[in-house]
């Protein structure tokens, strides 16, 4: 098997290849043009901001998922990790406030500790996968099942109201009119794209996904890199969970991050990353996340029920993956 990661592919330009390469970008452009023409107020700052606000948690998680998938893995636990981080934030804040009496310190801790917990759990996923050689889908299934339970046990299944203004900036704040979490998403995409394209660890991630055995034999620290990508996935999930809590001014362990694993994986797949690993595009994932978000808004804005939007999303995923497949066979 040739190693796609390390052998540069010859650039042949043909219409079909261009379509397959840039199909996702084209689809995004078509969606944007359609909405600009048909959907009322689509180009108003309000509508754009709502779209950005909603897509940010998916985008952030999907960037890390891209790195995980690039190693040939998968992370089903992201939604549950979001719930854990989301459940922890109000608890930590209340405890810190009672103990130190400082709201500033409380907010700092209520952001830092949940994110650290999510990183630790993500690292644990990676540790189980590498230590016992368990398939990623099974290993992360454990925390998918147990993680939401842990969040529910911590909160007794109750909704915690959490309307701390400084914490709320994560989900409600604006910088120069742009939602803060959208900036976070852009930063995550930039960091992810740079890491994958230009850094050593990016090369190593792709090498592992392309051919793990070959990567190991050529001296790639497979175990360390794998643990890193799952820890990064934990980091992204923790941040996304906090954003979700900030948007809602409350934390519901039953709902925070529910179904996120599927949205993130769908964004990665639509964006053109190979699910078997070895080839990945972070920018593509952003495009994928935007497409999924826009399809939903387009349908809802034009009076199509949410349920039908699910069917369209299904067709979109199948179509996108099928088109990309044509390019390989």
């Amino acid at each position, binding site marked *: 098997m040739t190693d796609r990661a390390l052998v540069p592919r010859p650039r042949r330009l043909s219409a079909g290849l261009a379509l397959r390469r840039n199909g996702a970008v084209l689809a995004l452009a078509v969606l944007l043009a359609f909405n600009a023409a048909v959907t009322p107020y689509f180009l108003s700052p309000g509508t754009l901001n709502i779209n950005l606000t909603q897509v940010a948690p998916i985008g952030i998680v999907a960037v890390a998922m891209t790195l995980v998938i690039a190693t040939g893995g998968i992370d089903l636990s992201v939604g549950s990790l979001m719930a854990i981080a989301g459940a922890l934030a109000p608890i930590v804040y209340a405890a810190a406030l009672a103990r130190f009496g400082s709201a500033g310190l409380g907010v700092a801790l209520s952001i830092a500790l949940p994110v650290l917990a999510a990183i630790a759990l993500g690292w644990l996923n990676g540790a189980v996968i590498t230590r016992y050689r368990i398939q990623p889908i099974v290993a992360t299934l*454990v925390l998918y099942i147990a993680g939401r339970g842990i969040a529910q046990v911590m909160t007794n299944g109750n909704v915690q109201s959490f309307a701390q203004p400084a914490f709320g900036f994560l989900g409600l704040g604006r910088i120069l009119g742009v939602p803060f979490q959208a900036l976070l998403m852009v930063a995550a995409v930039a960091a992810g794209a740079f890491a994958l394209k230009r850094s050593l660890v990016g090369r190593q991630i792709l090498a592992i996904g392309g051919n793990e055995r070959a990567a190991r034999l050529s001296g790639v620290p497979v175990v360390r890199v794998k643990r890193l990508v799952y820890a990064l996935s934990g980091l992204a999930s923790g941040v996304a969970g906090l954003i979700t809590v900030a948007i809602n001014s409350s934390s519901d362990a039953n709902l925070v991050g529910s179904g996120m694993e599927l949205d993130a994986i769908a964004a990665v797949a639509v964006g053109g990353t190979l699910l078997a690993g070895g080839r990945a595009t972070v920018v593509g994932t952003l495009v994928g996340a935007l497409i999924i978000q826009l399809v939903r808004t387009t349908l809802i804005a034009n009076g199509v029920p949410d349920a039908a939007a699910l*069917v369209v999303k*299904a067709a979109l995923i199948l179509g996108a993956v099928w088109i990309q497949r044509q390019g390989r066979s």
Partner: protein
Amino acid sequence: MNLLNAPTLAQRERGLLLLGRYGVVLGLGALILFGALRYERFLSPFNVLSFLGYNSMFALVSLGMLFVIATGGIDLSVGAVAALGSVVSALASPSGEAWGLAAGVGTGLAVGLVNGFAVVRLGIAPFIATLATMLGARGVALLAAGNGTVSASYDSGFTDLGQGDVAGFPVPALVALACFAIGWVALERTAFGRTVLAVGGNEEATRLMGLPADGTKWAVYAVSGALAGLAGVVLAAQFGAGQPIEGQGWELFAISAVVVGGTPLNGGNGSVVTTLAGVILLGLIFNILNFENGLGTVSLSAYWQSVIRGAFLLLVVVAQAKLVARGSPERA
């Protein structure tokens, strides 16, 4: 490899594989013994029968999942298909028991064929293909049900499929048991079953041997869909309504039941009997939690159920991984 050494290694591996496979039966036995000794009503007919009736739905989707996993695939759509099956069968239930049953199973079969088409003909990875049909089936279920639940007819005998009993034994449990018996014969005693395992072991080799690899893959997704549809029929009949938002997370329950039952996810292996043991074992965790709360010694909310299930899954996969590593030192 040393030829003289090979048989003993194989034997050793086989022994460990058997332990990994039937360990779940031992665990199940221990858990039942624990429950029987600790709780007065644990083995009472009421508890046993309602347990079997309720868990039959999970048993059905897990059986289908087992066949898919044995070919090296996965079917994430089963929960949504069960929801869709429950809605369609409830809609058809006024026409009679048989129509309701046929509508639910037929719908599941149809989605299963879509899965087969996407995986075999379009060549899309099973994980993604069935993820998409999961969304699609959920959407169709919500559309068909008009975003609410659909009452099933109580006059046509349809609800007997979920609430009736034969000689005191709940109908859904009998249905599930019959499916498992057929599944056991199909996997262990037929050419189809051997081809399923062969495809999971090495698809390319299977194809080169002239076995119908593609047809077999179509078949397992169709079977999984039909069984999920049947689970939907049981759901609608048991609760008297088609429920478009039910079935969330069933696919992951089914995958854990198969894995706890000693079937690895990479295909080529599969055991019907221990999958059933896996289903019962995971269900028993909830049952025992209820009894423990009833004793009043502890007060664990229902949320603990998923924490314990997750911990259990971890325990099992780590134990299996260790057995495999010991069975084949060259792989470690």
